[in-house]
C-alpha cells in the first residue's frame, strides 16, 4: 500500500489536530481525516463562534448602559445578521488557521468520512469513493453532537440544536432553552441581551448544575435581574410545532404549564460520534457511548487510540487537546504524566462569567474533608467598582488539615481568564499561604482570589 502513515487521526477537532501536530513535531508522518470542517466542533460550531456572539452581546450591553460610563448614545440597534456573520467569519478564520498549521507541519488532510478497518487500516469515503490508508497507529477523535431527548426531537427549524442556534436566519422573539449547562446559559445570555424573551427550563434544582451551589444561586439572581424567566425542577414533556410558533408543555412541581415561543433550543448535552466508524468491525470496546481507554488513551486494540469527547472525562476542548498530547507523546516513547482529571478548569462565558476548578463545597464535604471556606464579593473590589462590574464573587475551599486548595469557584467579569492561577497553583501543590503571600497587582479583579484566601484563613483585610 502506497498510502502508509506512522499515524492517522480521524477527526480534526482540538483533539485530532493537536494530536497530529504533536506527532509531526516528534518526527512522525501523519494524516488527518475530516468529514466536515477542519478544526472540529470547537472552532467551527462550538467554543469559538459562540464566544464571538457573546462578545457582540456584551458590547451591546455596554452600549445600552453607556450613560453609566459618561457616554451618551442616541440610537443603537443589535443587527442580528451582522452578529451571526461576524461569528461565522471568526470561525472561518480559525479553521483556515488550523489548515495552515497542518500544512506547515506537513500533515496530509484526507477529506471524507473515516472508518477504522482491520489490519490498522483507515478507509476514507468521499463523493462515493473509498480509499484505504495504512498506519502504524490510529487515533480516533470524532467528537460529539447534540444529544436528543425523546420528547424534544430536533427538526432544525423550530426545535433546534447548537448549530442552528448560532446560524439562525433571524432573531427569534421568544425562545425556550432546555438545559442550563454551559451551552444553554451562554445562548440564554446572548439571546436575552439582544432582546429575545428567554425562558430556561432545567431539570435539576439549580441552573449550571455542575457548579458549586453558591455559583448557581448567583447566576440565577443575575439572570433574573437581566429579565430571563427561569424554571428549575422542570421538564419539557412535549412541544407542539403545528401552529406558527411552538407550544411548549413544561411539567414543574406545581403542575403543567404552557409556554409559547418561536423557537426551542435543546441544550441537554452531547452524544458521541462512535457509530458507523468501524469500531464493531475491529472490536474496539465501548461503554455507554464512550470508547474505553487506559491512562494513555489506548483502546483494547493495539495501535488504536481514542481521545476527546468520545472518551470518559469532561467534554471540553482543552481536555481533548491535553489528551492528544499525552497520547501522542506516550505513543512516541516519551514519558508524559497521565492527565489529572481532578485539576481541569471549566468555564462558562455568559455575563457574569463562571470559572471553576476542583471540588465544590458539597463534593469536598462528601469526600470527608474538613474544610475552610473563603469568599470575597466583587462589590468589595476597587477594580470591579471602577469597571462597573461588581456582580459576583470568588469562593475558595481548603482542606483544614493540610491546607490543600481543594476548589476555586469564580463568578464575575473576566473570571475565565483568572482561573489559570488556581489550576497552576494546585498543580504546584500550593497551600493557601503561598497565594496570600504572592503579590497580586492592584487594582485587579485577580486580587479577589487572594482576598478570598485571606478570608478562608481568617485574615481578610478588605471584608
Amino acid at each position, binding site marked *: 500500500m502506497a498510502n502508509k502513515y506512522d499515524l492517522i487521526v480521524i477527526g480534526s477537532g482540538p483533539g485530532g489536530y493537536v494530536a497530529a501536530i504533536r506527532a509531526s513535531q516528534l518526527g512522525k508522518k501523519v494524516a488527518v481525516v475530516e468529514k466536515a470542517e477542519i478544526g472540529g466542533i470547537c472552532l467551527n460550531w462550538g467554543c469559538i463562534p459562540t464566544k464571538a456572539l457573546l462578545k457582540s452581546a456584551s458590547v451591546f450591553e455596554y452600549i445600552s448602559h453607556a450613560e453609566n460610563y459618561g457616554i451618551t448614545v442616541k440610537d443603537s440597534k443589535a443587527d442580528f445578521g451582522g452578529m451571526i456573520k461576524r461569528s461565522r467569519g471568526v470561525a472561518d478564520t480559525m479553521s483556515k488557521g488550523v489548515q495552515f498549521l497542518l500544512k506547515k507541519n506537513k500533515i496530509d488532510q484526507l477529506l471524507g468520512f473515516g472508518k477504522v478497518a482491520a489490519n490498522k487500516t483507515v478507509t476514507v469515503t468521499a463523493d462515493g469513493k473509498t480509499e484505504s490508508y495504512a498506519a502504524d497507529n490510529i487515533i480516533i477523535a470524532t467528537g460529539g453532537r447534540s444529544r436528543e431527548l425523546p420528547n424534544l426531537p430536533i427538526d432544525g427549524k423550530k426545535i433546534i440544536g447548537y448549530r442552528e442556534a448560532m446560524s439562525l436566519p433571524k432573531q427569534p422573539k421568544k425562545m425556550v432553552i432546555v438545559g442550563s449547562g454551559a451551552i444553554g446559559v451562554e445562548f440564554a445570555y446572548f439571546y436575552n441581551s439582544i432582546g429575545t424573551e428567554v425562558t430556561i427550563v432545567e431539570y435539576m434544582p439549580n441552573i449550571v448544575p455542575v457548579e458549586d451551589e453558591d455559583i448557581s444561586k448567583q447566576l440565577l439572581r443575575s439572570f433574573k435581574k437581566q429579565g430571563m424567566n427561569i424554571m428549575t425542577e422542570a421538564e419539557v414533556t412535549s412541544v407542539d410545532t403545528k401552529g406558527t410558533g411552538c407550544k411548549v408543555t413544561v411539567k414543574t412541581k406545581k403542575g403543567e404549564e404552557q409556554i409559547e415561543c418561536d423557537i426551542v433550543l435543546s441544550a441537554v448535552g452531547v452524544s458521541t460520534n462512535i457509530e458507523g466508524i468501524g469500531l464493531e468491525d475491529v472490536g474496539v470496546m465501548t461503554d455507554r457511548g464512550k470508547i474505553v481507554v487506559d491512562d494513555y488513551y489506548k483502546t483494547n486494540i493495539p495501535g488504536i487510540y481514542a481521545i476527546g469527547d468520545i472518551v470518559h472525562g469532561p467534554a471540553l476542548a482543552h481536555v481533548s487537546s491535553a489528551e492528544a498530547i499525552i497520547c501522542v507523546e506516550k505513543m512516541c516513547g516519551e514519558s508524559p*504524566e497521565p492527565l489529572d482529571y481532578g485539576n481541569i478548569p471549566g468555564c462558562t462565558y455568559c455575563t457574569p462569567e463562571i470559572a471553576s476548578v476542583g471540588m465544590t463545597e458539597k463534593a469536598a464535604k462528601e469526600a470527608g474533608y474538613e474544610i475552610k471556606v473563603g469568599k470575597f464579593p466583587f462589590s468589595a473590589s476597587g477594580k470591579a467598582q471602577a469597571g462597573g462590574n461588581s456582580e459576583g464573587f470568588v469562593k475558595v475551599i481548603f482542606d483544614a488539615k493540610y*491546607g*490543600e486548595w481543594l476548589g476555586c469557584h469564580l463568578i464575575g467579569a473576566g473570571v475565565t481568564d483568572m482561573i489559570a492561577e488556581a489550576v497552576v497553583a494546585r498543580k504546584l*501543590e*500550593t*497551600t493557601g499561604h503561598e497565594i496570600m503571600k504572592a503579590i497580586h497587582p492592584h487594582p485587579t479583579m485577580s486580587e479577589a482570589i487572594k482576598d478570598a484566601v485571606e478570608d478562608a484563613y481568617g485574615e481578610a483585610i478588605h471584608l
Partner: protein
Amino acid sequence: KPAVQKSESGRFYSPLVMTIVREEGISMKELDGLTGTGHDGRVTKKDILALVRSKRPKNYVD
C-alpha cells in the same frame, strides 16, 4: 504558618508536601530518602501520603 522549607539535600518540596510532613511529624531525612513519582522524580502529595499511610503515625486517622 507553613513556610516553604528546603531540604538538606537541596531538593524542592511543594508547600503542600511540607505541610503534610510537618503535620505528620515526618523527618527531613525520611523525606529526602523518598523517591518521587512526579516530573523528574519530584515528591508529590501522593508520594508523601503513601509514606504517611505506611507509617501510620499516632495522629493519622484514616
